[in-house]
């Protein structure tokens, strides 16, 4: 009786949260899936069922593939720089910098993450400015005029320039979080490894990496999903240009929903994004839960 009463009241207590999640998360998701099979716009309220046509259009759309390529590039670079380099940075900080100096560096690393993207965008627009920009000035100063470019204005360089900006902004953030994970590793393990003759590199590979695996996994999921959801950076820097070279899935959804007024197509792309991120999340969780290392 008591347990049953408890269970009933537990459900009732959880009900508002469940209702809210259903209404605010799962209902829109289901709705989005439904809309992706329809063709409609705000000016023609009748919704026409078109089956998989929106998906077929997407797969035949050159800009869609540019967007996918850009998102994949974003994810790959972010994974290598933010998580990879971030982990190395954190390990270096943990090992060679102590006390107040470490706290100082941690704050310095973390700082870019607290700056709003609008400000970062303006800052990097100055850095990348073709005539008076810091980057081209620096290249000229080093006698490398040949490498100076219109970083945001050339289709070949624009997306990489934006990706680079994101790395500047987020690597320190990831490193700061990984540092916390590293500091939770008991020092005896390093001492034991040292006694066994392992040098700093060996210790990093055999102690630090396995024991921060979970945090690394979480950060990888976050970084990769963020790379597939990127939007603000693009809007602030190029708005998808030049000639669609920096379109990503996020800007493509926005463009189709709010500019081209093609809601069905936008929903179809949104559904594709959902599937991509779900698959990434699921594989990473599956992989890391199998190889959990416990202390």
């Amino acid at each position, binding site marked *: 009786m008591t347990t049953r009463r408890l269970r009933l009241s537990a459900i009732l207590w959880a009900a508002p949260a469940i209702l*809210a999640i259903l209404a605010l998360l799962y209902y829109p998701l289901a709705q989005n899936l439904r809309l992706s099979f329809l063709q409609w716009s705000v000016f023609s309220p009748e919704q026409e069922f078109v089956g998989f046509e929106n998906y077929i259009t997407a797969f035949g759309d050159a800009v869609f593939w540019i967007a996918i390529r850009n998102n994949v590039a974003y994810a790959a670079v972010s994974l290598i720089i933010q998580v990879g380099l971030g982990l190395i940075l954190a390990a270096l900080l943990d090992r060679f910098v102590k006390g107040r100096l470490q706290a100082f560096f941690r704050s310095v690393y973390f700082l870019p993450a607290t700056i709003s993207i609008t400000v970062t965008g303006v800052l990097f627009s100055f850095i990348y400015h*073709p005539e008076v920009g810091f980057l081209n000035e620096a290249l000229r100063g080093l006698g490398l005029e040949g490498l100076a470019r*219109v970083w945001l204005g*050339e289709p070949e360089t624009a997306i990489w320039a934006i990706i680079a900006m994101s790395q500047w902004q987020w690597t320190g953030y990831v490193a700061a979080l990984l540092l916390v994970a590293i500091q939770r590793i008991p020092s005896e393990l390093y001492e034991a490894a040292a006694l066994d003759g392992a040098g700093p590199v060996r210790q990093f590979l055999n102690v630090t990496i396995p024991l921060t695996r979970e945090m690394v996994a979480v950060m990888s999921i976050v970084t990769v999903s963020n790379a597939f959801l990127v939007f603000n950076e693009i809007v602030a820097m190029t708005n998808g*240009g*030049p000639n669609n070279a920096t379109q990503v899935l996020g800007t493509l959804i926005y463009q189709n929903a709010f500019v081209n007024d093609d809601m069905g197509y936008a929903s179809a792309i949104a559904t594709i994004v959902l599937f991509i991120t779900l698959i990434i999340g699921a594989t990473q969780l599956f992989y890391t839960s199998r190889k959990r290392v416990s202390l």
Partner: protein
Amino acid sequence: MTKKVRSRSKTVLVVSTLLTLTLSACGGSGDAGQGDQTLTVMHKWPEGDHAAFFEKVVDEFEKTNPGVSVEMQAIQDDPYKERLRVLTASDDLPDVYFAWPGGYGEQYFNAGFAADLTSELEGEWEGSLLPAAVEAYTVEGKNYAVPVSMSGKYMIYNSAMFEEHGVQVPTTYEELLTACDTFEAAGLTPITMGNNAMWPGVHYLTTLIAKHVPQDVMRADFEPATATFDHPGYIRAFEDLNELAQRCFTAGANGISNDSAKAEIQTGVAPMYYGESNIFSIFREANGATPEVAANWNFFAFPDIEGAEGDAESLTGAPDGFLVNEKSDNKDLAIEFLKFFTSQENGARLLEMRDRPSAVVGSAEGVADVLPQLDEALTHLQGVETFNIWLDTATNPEVGAAFLAGGQAAIDGSQTAEQILDSIRAASDSLK
């Protein structure tokens, strides 16, 4: 037993409170002001002088119409489009709202979201407004908006720099290119251009296409059902833009913002800039122009292109106008408001407070501090018979997007004119 009841009723209370909160948050828009009338207005000028002007007009309108209150919302350009779309989808449009002329505004009229104002405008009211401005907001002879202000696109130039380098105001396209070469040889950027936001490139394309393609052909092509885009003038327009980019524009224009380009004409770094008459106020010293520039600038209409088949007299530019919500309960009041807005007095006020030409005929009379150049532009605008509306709002949004991307491709030369035209054709064909 009592305890059980109490705990359960507590739970029910929590659930119901939350539900009420959620529900009340959803059904926000209550009806305001029984008895008194409330007029809702939405536009895209939230900045300083513009906002002050709108507030003044609203104040005066409320004063002359007791019992009426105006609720005004101002949202900046890009978010404005988004907001309008959301309000349209939820059938919640304000009584009076701004929309761009051309395909953009027409879609609101065709879908029944904008009232037919033809009979209202007919006669005296229409006579008080500039014909080209009224014409821009018509579809098949029906007026769907009331124009309030106007803007024309002119080549703004630094007359001191022209004199210094011995350059005359170009009267043909060839002379413009030669002028560019002269400045280029002197180590200057001839025309300052920032096409990061893509619309500056489209403004050039609007002009070039109107010069090369006859008006009726152009209009048929902007309608997806009749579009062919096979007039050779389109190819020439894209080629011309590429040539301008190479010989005149700032290098790497696609990577530079319009604001940054505009600053170069304002501070005397570059001799030319293609800008709208509604930015003439930046040449006041108070608004950041250097004294030398403030005293030495002028403008000319984009020069004629030899052998081009389009309408050489037409001008790239457009009026700004307001639509009346067809589904509004306050239609009469909305029309009253727009009549008030376009009175001689408010036309003059618009010029005075916003440095922007009004669509009201003769509005410059009695305004003391009009920039002489603006006054000249106003005279020129009054003589314009056809406006070439910006391509990204004149056409369907998808075709507009193809033009925006195509402008960047023509400027950096990453695609040939044929390739760009193919992508525009493809966008248009997908709407058939």
